[in-house]
């Protein structure tokens, strides 16, 4: 259907287990993500989907299991290292920087790419100033892409929920990530807005070749846009495959989908 | 328009030191009111004053200094900050602006050397003098200075520049008289002294010197009672020797001794005169009249007497009935002499020591009395006790010389002053 090529496995999670005290958030989960694909994670509430994303970008450290990213086994890693390696994400409960404007929020997304040090920035001539403009240009591209020009200077706290979600996506995109983790990007949107969001996600995936891991409860969306789906329930993996495989999996139907959709 | 002599009062009536401040400023203002009411001013020159709230804060003090500087007909003619911190903060400024600064019983000790500090007058007694008098008092109690040998004195001090100032002096005296001295600091504010007093008990000293400040004083007295240290073996500095320091300690304070360059009591003629001439006309400054005659109040009266007498002295030289400027006032302070005859005329005999200021010696007296708290009020215990000038003076000169060197000041030659 379009030009993008699904490539090799770039992220391989093997036998991941994660516990919080007595709570088993994830039990012995293995799955992989291929380059350029859209990989969905679905499952009932509390299944461990968000925890899974947190494991991928180093916010949580699983007690057991191996994580191989780009062929390298990852030791204990801090989240900012994941960002350096090109993993960006959005959050389920919006995690924008409330005290900053939309533009500044998105600019923070490019922080890993900034080279000038704080002294240069304090004096604000030469490299620091050039850099600031250069990154601003990149950020404006993202802003144009997501069509949020009109709210550029607004403090994010004042935006309605849906727009905040979009700003968060913009922040993640500003980092030009090779892998994008999206935690329920369409929650709280109406159909029209969801359509827009899908379009954005597809375009990012298409045009930039970004690999996407997506958590979403809207089955219409998941089934339509994802290449492969993994299903979690109570921290266990109960299904993995193409949307059609999953849709017809008995266990998935009884645990999550309920009556056939 | 009648001629008026303006006196700026950087006062503090709120906050932690309000209790002391309201007493001192009350007494001081009342005395000036007395001079105005009874005598019609100093040789016809009325005294006027304005307060400026410092909250005992250095920055506010500086602001008050600058604000008061240009007030009144002649500008401010004497600055008395009543806070060592503010004293330091305006030390340089007073010389530039030619306004004498008078610090009675606080401030910079080595400013007693008038050659280096022509504009600063730490009058009556400084901390070092007072401390030697204290040792003299203890010696007398022990039956002679030679009996001090082998004795042990604990110096409980407020852990600050103020508190530390007497340590070198005590050490020198310990060497001279052969007693041991143990210094125990109490950190600000000093409202908890359990550990310090357990140490006192362990040390088993013969005497304790209390160099306290604010709430540290009643706390120390109470803690002494708690560990069973006799209060009549505790000698406080004058910032530990007011009603404010003993009343909160309740019964525990009975027997506590403190040094003072003024005494408590409302029976002195000068205080009576204030009652008759000021309060009868409803012009008194104190809201709580019961505090008239308290240590702080009387100290304020002493401030008033010294200020007024300096104006008088200056007028005698520069013209009676004229308003004095800062330089003339400085001369007045530097040539101030209040002998016992004059004290009697003022109604302040025994109330404060006689004094004679010179170019060399801006302290002018160095005498203190010791008073004891009897559970209700302060009772005078001794006559005026002189400081150990031989010990103190060289130390002052040394310290002043160091300052002069640091600041590139050439000390005045006092033989040339007239």
């Amino acid at each position, binding site marked *: 259907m379009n030009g993008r090529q699904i490539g090799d496995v770039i992220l391989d999670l093997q036998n991941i287990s994660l516990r919080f005290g007595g709570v088993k958030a994830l039990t012995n989960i293995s799955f992989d993500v291929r380059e350029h694909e859209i990989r969905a994670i679905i499952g009932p509430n509390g299944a461990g989907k968000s925890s899974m994303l947190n494991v991928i*970008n180093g*916010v949580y450290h699983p007690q057991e299991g191996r994580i191989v990213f780009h062929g390298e086994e990852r030791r204990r890693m801090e*989240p*900012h290292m994941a*960002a*350096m390696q090109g993993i*960006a*994400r959005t959050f389920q409960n919006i995690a*924008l*920087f409330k*005290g*900053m404007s939309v533009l*500044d929020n998105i600019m*923070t997304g490019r*922080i890993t790419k900034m080279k*000038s040090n*704080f002294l240069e*920035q*304090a*004096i604000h001539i030469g490299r620091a100033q050039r850099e600031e*403009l250069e990154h*601003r*240009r990149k950020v*404006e591209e993202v802003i144009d892409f997501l069509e949020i020009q009109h709210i550029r200077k607004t403090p994010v706290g004042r935006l309605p929920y849906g727009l905040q979600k979009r700003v968060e996506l913009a922040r993640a995109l500003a*980092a030009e990530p090779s892998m994008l983790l999206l935690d329920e990007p369409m929650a709280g949107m109406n159909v029209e807005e969801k359509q827009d969001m899908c379009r954005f996600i597809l375009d990012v995936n298409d045009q930039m070749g970004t690999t996407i891991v997506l958590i979403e409860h809207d089955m219409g969306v998941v089934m339509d846009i994802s290449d492969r789906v993994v299903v979690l329930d109570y921290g266990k993996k109960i299904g993995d495959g193409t949307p059609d495989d999953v849709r017809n999996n008995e266990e998935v139907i009884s645990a999550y989908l309920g009556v056939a959709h | 328009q009648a001629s008026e002599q303006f006196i700026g009062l950087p*006062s*503090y*009536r*709120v906050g932690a030191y*309000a209790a002391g401040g*309201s007493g001192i400023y009350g007494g001081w203002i009342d005395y000036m009111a007395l001079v105005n009411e009874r005598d019609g001013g100093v040789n016809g020159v009325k005294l006027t004053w*304005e*307060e*400026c*709230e410092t*909250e005992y*804060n*250095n*920055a*506010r003090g*500086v602001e008050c*200094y600058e*604000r008061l500087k240009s007030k009144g007909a002649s500008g401010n003619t004497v600055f008395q900050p009543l806070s060592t*911190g503010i004293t*330091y*903060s305006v*030390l*340089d*400024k007073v010389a530039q602006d030619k306004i004498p600064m008078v610090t009675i019983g606080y401030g*910079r000790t*080595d400013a007693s050397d008038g050659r280096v500090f022509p504009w600063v007058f730490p009058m009556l007694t400084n901390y070092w003098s007072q401390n030697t008098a204290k040792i003299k008092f203890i010696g007398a109690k022990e039956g002679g200075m030679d009996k001090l040998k082998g004795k042990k004195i604990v110096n409980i001090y407020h852990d*600050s*520049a*103020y508190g*530390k*100032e007497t340590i070198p002096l005590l050490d020198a005296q310990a060497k001279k008289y052969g007693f041991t001295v143990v210094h125990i600091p109490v950190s600000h504010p000093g409202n908890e002294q359990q550990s310090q007093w357990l140490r006192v008990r362990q040390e088993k000293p013969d005497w304790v010197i209390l160099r306290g400040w604010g709430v540290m004083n009643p706390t120390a007295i109470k803690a002494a009672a708690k560990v069973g240290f006799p209060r009549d073996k505790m000698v406080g500095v004058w910032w530990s020797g007011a009603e404010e320091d003993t009343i909160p300690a309740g019964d525990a304070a009975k027997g506590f001794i403190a040094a003072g360059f003024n005494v408590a009591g409302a029976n002195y003629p000068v205080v009576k005169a204030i009652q008759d001439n000021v309060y009868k006309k409803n012009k008194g*400054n104190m*809201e709580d009249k019961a505090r008239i005659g308290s240590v702080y109040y009387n100290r304020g009266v002493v401030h008033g007497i010294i200020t007024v007498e300096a104006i008088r002295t200056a007028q005698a030289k520069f013209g009676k009935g004229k308003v004095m400027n800062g330089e003339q006032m400085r001369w007045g302070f530097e040539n101030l002499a209040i002998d016992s005859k004059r004290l009697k005329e003022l109604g302040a005999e025994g109330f404060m020591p006689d004094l004679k200021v010179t170019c060399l010696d801006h302290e002018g007296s160095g005498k203190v009395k010791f008073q004891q708290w009897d559970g209700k009020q302060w009772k005078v215990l001794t006559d005026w006790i002189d400081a150990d000038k031989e010990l103190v003076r060289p130390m002052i000169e040394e310290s002043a010389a160091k300052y002069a060197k*640091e*600041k590139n000041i050439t000390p005045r030659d006092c033989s040339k002053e007239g």
Partner: protein
Amino acid sequence: MLYREAGQFKATYAADQQIFPIRQDRIGIQLLLALAFVAVPLFASEYWLKAIMVPFLVFSLAALGLNILTGYAGQLSLGSAAFMAVGAFASYNFMLRIDGMPLLVAFALGGLMAALVGIAFGLPSLRIKGFYLAVATLAAQFFIVWLLTKVGWFSNDSSSGVITAQEMVILGYRFDSPQAKYLLVLSIVAVMALMAKNMVRSSVGRAWMAVRDMDVAAEVIGIRIMYTKLLAFAVSSFYCGVAGALYAFAYLGTVEPEGFNLDLSFKILFMIIIGGVGSISGAFLGSAFIVLLPIFLDVLVQDVFAGLLSPSIASNMQLMVFGGLIIFFLIVEPHGLARLWQIAKEKLRLWPFPH
């Protein structure tokens, strides 16, 4: 119609990223600077310069420093006065012990010492947050003052622990008139304020704010929390250190360690909260409020109400009014005077329409 953005189109991002993108603001700030550099020294009395403008500027600088740490990076600090003390005592000692030390270098080194101390006491911030972090800075506050009092070397063994700052001489010029002192302080403060503004509108500033607003998310984006927090401590302490040096050299002349007590730290904190947390102009507005208001109230009482009220009541009334006004302003605008000013501007922009 005076305050309008309309018609001012930004053709380039460079134009949009100026410090003051709106023309009226640019003109305003130029007027303000002209006023500060030319009119004030020409017309202000000695009292105003010495007792009001200089402390106002010095405190503004300290507040600026604290605002970087607390307002921008979100790390609550109650130790600003201690960092000021480090700056003051360090500058004094550099001047004292190194012959021919240039004054401005001594100030910078004083600031640098404060920055080092700031980093040391900032280390716990990697683990401790919010009001709990205040304890680390309180430890700094008490420990530093204790150390300066205890170790005589810092005050050149003066018997009272007090230091007297050296004269201010730069390239042979003696800054001793009130005007000269004021201009020196003003220049330093203006330059440092500009640098602060530049930092907070660049990526360091954004990193600070990100850490403040949501540190987990900040880390996920790739911000190194440790570096960012410690940098905030260092820069903030540097500002406080320089402010401390100016406090000693240009304002009081003579300082003692106890002068840099907790009260002063709180005062600086009050300034940024009243002025506006996370705003450069807020530091100045807050400093003006906290420094000037009590003086204003006192003058008012002395001049207008003298004799009407007993002096103690009058003094205590001042305190009550001061407290009341703090509350009043917070109720009107919890985000401080700077925000109030912003809203006023926004209203002005809409004027004469209400919305």
